[in-house]
């Protein structure tokens, strides 16, 4: 079970993502963006880690989305292999048209289906903040178990505490009916919520102004998942913030571990 962790110039979470991959018992390596793209087909799964590919020039993910490895990744997605995009990886998958991945939008001359726009934090109808933001957030798993590759082993309604760190995570779309379609197909995988799991569509609970507090979505078959929060930064309990009691039990798994365990389980079940 071999996972490719893709590295673009400016990616900065590839090493801890690889640690997480190996810690759940998968094999993996860092795959540089300028390696022969065809070599991707020898891997069983892919992670596009967080960071700032190409320094977020133009728009986050826009430049990396034009790389040949993304074209090869589309072929791998078509084979049903799991692909998880975390933070900047999610932005790249959206810019490349892999998410939400409707076939109409995947053709090379067609436009994409959504954007992760600049954060705009709104509270009581007023913009209270904008731009880059990092914090620990709570996520509610919205899809049933086995719906997406990265939340395969997570039951519906489960709460995860995971950090976010981004400037462009505000999911917007001009495609009519797309959000409704995503909701109906259980393609909305995680939403931002408060610590009790209530969805409050306002800052500080909705941390970036995202439509309907959406934090993660998957494609229709469920193998491609994009999420703004960083599960690899909450993989071990000791990574949790100081005020979290779980931090004192360093041998325990952190909440983000479940995402990587899900990916492993997804590959095992598919095999």
């Amino acid at each position: 079970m071999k996972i490719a962790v893709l590295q673009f110039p400016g990616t900065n979470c590839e090493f801890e993502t690889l640690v997480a991959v190996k810690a759940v018992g998968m094999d993996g390596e860092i795959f540089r963006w300028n390696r022969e793209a065809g070599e991707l087909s020898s891997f069983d799964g892919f992670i596009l880690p967080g960071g700032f590919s190409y320094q977020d020039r133009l728009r986050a993910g826009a430049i990396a989305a034009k790389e040949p490895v993304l074209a090869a990744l589309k072929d791998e997605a078509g084979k049903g292999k799991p692909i998880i995009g975390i933070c900047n990886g999610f932005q790249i998958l959206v810019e490349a048209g892999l998410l939400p991945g409707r076939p109409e939008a995947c053709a090379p001359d067609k436009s994409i289906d959504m954007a992760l726009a600049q954060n705009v934090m709104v509270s009581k109808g007023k913009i209270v903040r904008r731009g880059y933001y990092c914090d620990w957030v709570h996520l509610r798993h919205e899809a049933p178990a086995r719906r997406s590759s990265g939340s395969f082993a997570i039951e519906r309604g489960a709460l995860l505490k995971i950090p976010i760190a981004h400037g462009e995570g505000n999911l917007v779309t001009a495609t009519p009916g797309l959000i409704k379609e995503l909701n109906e197909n259980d393609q909305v995988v995680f939403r931002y919520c408060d610590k009790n799991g209530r969805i409050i569509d306002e800052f500080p609970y909705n941390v970036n102004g995202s439509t309907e507090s959406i934090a993660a979505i998957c494609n229709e078959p469920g193998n491609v998942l994009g999420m703004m929060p960083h599960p690899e930064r909450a993989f071990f309990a000791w990574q949790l913030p100081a005020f979290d009691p779980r931090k004192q039990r360093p041998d325990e798994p952190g909440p983000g571990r479940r995402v990587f365990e899900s990916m492993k389980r997804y590959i095992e079940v598919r095999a």
Partner: protein
Amino acid sequence: MSQKINLRVWLKIPDAEAATVKNTLIRRLGYGSILADVKKERLFSFEVDGGDPLELAKSFAKELVNENKESHKVYVDALEYEEDYVPVKVALHIEDGEAISIRERLRRRLGFSNVVDVENATVWKLYFKTLRPEAQIAAREIAEKLLINPHKDSYEILSH
């Protein structure tokens, strides 16, 4: 009567973002045969009600332009670009938090109560090897393929 102040701002040091966009267009999207260069500017448009527009423009430039690395040019009720490139203006069509912040900063913190509105855009200057009608078509194509994400941005070719 309200007046419109346009402030063009560009880097006088090398612009890495423009270089990356140029590279992507040439190396990844196949525009090498017709595209010669790409440069980038910012465009701030202020709608003001009263006051001497040139004096106001000077004050706005002082707040928004860093003279150590940037140059600027001011136009009142007009906007001009040079002839040797196709200027493509890209702006958010969703709420532009940065433009709102600039407006509020000028109005409330810096006391320019006559500022009615602020717009903020990027102008991509596309230098082509081909002549105008063909260049205009290619510029539209480039805008739609790379420069904008239609779910948040819109573009406009600023004609002369």
